[in-house]
């Protein structure tokens, strides 16, 4: 990780810096650039703590130790307990579409190390996909703050840990500085603190790590905005193109129906949960998101854009294709 230069935005004297952590790009913005240094310290502390607790690629991480205990309950840190609890709640809320027990399935697809070290091209997969055993097998005991993971079950908190650290860090920074803060971890954005006059401008792009090269920009005043894409973090095994979003029911890569799904809701964890779930739900995602009433933008591989609930509709859709607007529904 390395700190970046301060950048003044055009609207207001905000402080912005970029760094690398958790194998991806992290952006921090605060309302007043004088707060940037203390905010960066708080962010780095949160990132390091989550990496130590939740990384499935670090041999010394807490979660690796947990999976190796053969089903025995293990007392864990408050952070890991929170991360696993949140992951289980995400699984429940998404009807199992986003499940933390996909660890073995993801590894079986070839994503078994830090993504930078995953070979882009390789031999065909030697084994069939492994369905996720199911998040309900995880035993949580709040009283002793212990977790038991059955033998053979490997946890992957990739779908929720980055969003969780964004939420935690934004909240902590806003609390320390008493002003607005934005934290973006790998494209998952959390905003906390007193709202800015016109919100934080956030660009929507397939790949969050590169420079923004045009596309919709929306302002976010509070909560979270997260996107999931099947077009990044891809690799090839034999003739198959694979990506990192796994359907827990099959253990295989989720449908390629959507190229990019963005969801805005009250927290980054929830936004990430439903943007990932939408990829897994495939064609039915707009209707499901509309039923819940979550503002969302979905881009198909052929470029057709659908917007859901109160996400601003786009007069001309991305790549010149048509745009579809679905009305929001009531939560049932």
């Amino acid at each position, binding site marked *: 990780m390395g700190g970046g230069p301060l950048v003044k935005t055009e609207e207001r004297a905000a402080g*912005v810096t970029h760094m690398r952590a958790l194998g991806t790009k992290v952006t921090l913005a605060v309302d007043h650039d004088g707060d940037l240094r203390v905010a960066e310290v708080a962010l780095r502390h949160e990132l390091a703590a989550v990496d130590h607790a939740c990384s499935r690629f670090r041999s010394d991480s807490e979660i690796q130790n947990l999976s190796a205990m053969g089903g025995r309950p293990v007392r864990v840190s408050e952070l890991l307990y929170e991360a696993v609890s949140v992951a289980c*709640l995400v699984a429940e809320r998404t009807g199992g579409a986003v499940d933390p027990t996909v660890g073995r399935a993801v590894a079986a697809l070839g994503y078994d190390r830090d993504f930078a070290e995953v070979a882009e091209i390789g031999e065909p997969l030697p084994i069939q996909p492994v369905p996720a055993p199911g*998040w309900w097998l995880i035993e*949580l005991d709040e009283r002793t703050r212990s977790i038991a993971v059955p033998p053979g079950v490997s946890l992957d908190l990739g779908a929720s840990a980055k*969003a969780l650290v964004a939420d935690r860090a934004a909240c902590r920074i806003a609390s320390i500085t008493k002003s607005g803060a934005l934290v973006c971890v790998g494209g998952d954005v959390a905003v906390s603190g007193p709202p800015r006059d*016109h919100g934080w401008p956030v660009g929507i792009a397939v790949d969050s790590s590169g420079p923004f090269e045009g596309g919709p920009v929306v302002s976010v005043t*509070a909560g979270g905005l997260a996107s999931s894409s099947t077009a990044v973090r891809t690799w090839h095994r034999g003739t198959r193109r694979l990506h990192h979003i796994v359907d827990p029911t099959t253990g295989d890569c989720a449908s390629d129906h959507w190229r990019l799904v963005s969801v805005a*809701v009250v927290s980054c964890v929830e936004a990430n*949960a439903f943007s990932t779930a939408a990829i897994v739900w495939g064609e039915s995602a707009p209707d499901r998101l509309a039923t819940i009433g979550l503002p969302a933008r979905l881009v198909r591989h052929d470029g057709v854009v659908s917007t859901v609930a109160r996400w601003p509709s786009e007069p001309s859709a991305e790549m010149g294709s048509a745009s579809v607007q679905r009305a929001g529904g009531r939560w049932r």
Partner: protein
Amino acid sequence: MTTPWHYAQIQARRDETFERVRRVFRWTVVAALAGAAVITGVVAREIPGRSTVATTSNSGSGAPATTPASSPATSGGVAGGGAPPPQVTPPAPTQSPPTAVSGGTGF
């Protein structure tokens, strides 16, 4: 020979006895309910376990309607159980240059 005065006296004594029995009965019920509440509280605290709650979503994945007993006390997190997600101001279009980019997780 029993006079009407006697009847009145017997009736008054009977009513008084009934009233005493009713009072005892009421206190017995109150005590029983309070005892049950205390015992339930103690058991719930000393023997925590998994709670079963109905899920709101149709998983289609065979997941049982159980959830980890604890709710996460997260700064962000997700709304628990079947609660509707709290409303947040939806994103609005803007012409400003972006401070951050939301997209797929690249390098």
